[in-house]
């Protein structure tokens, strides 16, 4: 029913709706249209957080507390990479990142990691966007990107 109140409400709703789209659209345009600056960070070490859970008793005063730690819940399917960031002043200062991948795939590729001291050449691409945000790009071992095959996709 197009009463005066309803028209006002619809105009207000449409305007607010369009206004609320501003932030997400602006963010997406940053990532889609602006070319990020890419930096390559040396991977010093790689670890898999495969602890199922850990019970750690902690004695405090006369009470004994037990901390239950479930890293699987927090860091499952992630590889902990310790990094050495390049000297470029624009590069983000990162000590470590969690790289997302499945547990099985991480276990498979972990033996191929060697530290730079052992002559290994593993690098991680970091993309820096003009809005100040950064994201993790490809993981490269000896210059080749490590790509996990997509689960559930049937090869043609």
């Amino acid at each position, binding site marked *: 029913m197009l009463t005066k109140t309803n028209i006002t409400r619809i105009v*207000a*709703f449409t305007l*607010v709706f369009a206004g609320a789209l501003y932030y*997400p659209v602006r*963010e997406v345009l940053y990532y889609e249209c602006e070319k990020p600056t890419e930096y390559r960070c040396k991977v010093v070490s790689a670890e898999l957080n495969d602890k199922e859970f850990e019970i750690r008793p902690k004695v405090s005063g006369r009470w004994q507390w037990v901390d239950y730690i479930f890293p699987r819940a927090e860091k499952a399917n992630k590889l902990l990479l310790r990094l050495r960031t390049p000297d470029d002043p624009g590069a983000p200062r990162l000590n470590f990142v969690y790289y997302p991948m499945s547990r099985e795939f991480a276990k498979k590729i972990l033996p191929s990691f060697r530290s730079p001291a052992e002559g290994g050449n593993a690098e991680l691409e970091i993309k820096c966007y003009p809005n100040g945000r950064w994201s993790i790009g490809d993981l490269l071992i000896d210059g080749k990107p490590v790509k996990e095959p997509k689960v*559930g996709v049937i090869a043609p």
Partner: protein
Amino acid sequence: MDNKEELRWLLSEVPNLRRAGVLDEANAEALEKHCLGELDLKPPQWRFIYTLFFIGLGMVAAGCVLCVNNFWYNLSPHWQLAVCAVPAVLSLIVGMVTILKQKTQLWREFTAVLTAVAFGLLIAMPHQIYHTIGSWREIYVLTLFTALPFIYIFNSIALTTVYVVMLFGLSSWQTSHPLAGAFAALAILPMLHIHISRTSPDRVWSRYLMIAVAGFGLYYCGFNWYPALSALATAGTMLYAGWILSERNERYRCNPWLTVSFVSMLALLAMASADTRFFQIETDASKAALWAYWLFTGAVLATNIRLFPKSRLDAKRICTGLAVLLPLLIFIPGVDARIMKIVFNVYLGVYGGVLMLDGFKRSRLLTYNGGIAMVLMLILCRFFDTEWSRLARSIAFVAIGVVLIAANFIFFRRRFKVGR
């Protein structure tokens, strides 16, 4: 029949009357139909159907989320964005239908919450999709402010509740701009005021929400400069409002302002009479923090001035007004925190006495007990921090205890006489 309570009672009696044989099947059905029509209610079976509908809707939504989750990482970023935009598109359609078809309040609540959630999703997800480290604070504040216009457009009390709960999230970041919290709190006040001042079915719930907003404002803005003024002004204003409702014989659970403000006032006056740090003024406050402080305190003081002439002018109200004005004494040259402490000791005793007298005169037990609580609080505080000997304290306690017992005895005798 105008009284809905009586209609409801009649409706609840229909099965008993049918069992007793007073009403036959046809008459019972006709009476039930008439009552439901008058009350504008659906039969009780509808509640069950509604419940099942919402459980089913929840399961469908959860199933869709799980399904999307399963395939999420196989989708390209563009498809992921498209999936995130689905709730927003849905909310646009539902919003238009709700407004144009003038749907019921339940629909409006659903639409408002759906739209706010859809935009929360749309604001947060680009960071997840492009694997960037988004600022959680930025996402949270944006989601909060985006929800605000939808509250007003759909007149939604459910989204208002979510908004008020989310307000407290702002206080968990030290880096949040002081004015953001002040604006967020002030922006919801007109909505709550509309519900409280009109005969809205949600007016009681809005009173509870108002306490939460006042608490948040006090915590977020009120401590930025001179906490004594903002805290006592908030408690005093709420006490006025509580009294106005109490004079209208509002039920106890429908008037949360009275209890909360009285307990807060008692605690604040106890602190003021015990510790000089209560009157400390924050000298390092930034300009924005000061603005936030005065926005909040100004709004509270304006409400106080607006409520003052609405109630009967008596010693009780003048005393409460003094609680708002007394913290300003510290700005008089020569008055320091020690003098303020003495002033508030005297004030707590006088306020308690005035409340006791007022309760006694009007035979109102609640006011009388409030006065006793104030006097007892003063005695308790001084018992712990004065350096009298044990004997002097014991004599003082016995004397005050005897006075209280005598006062109670006289009060109950008077009430008994008045009652007879």
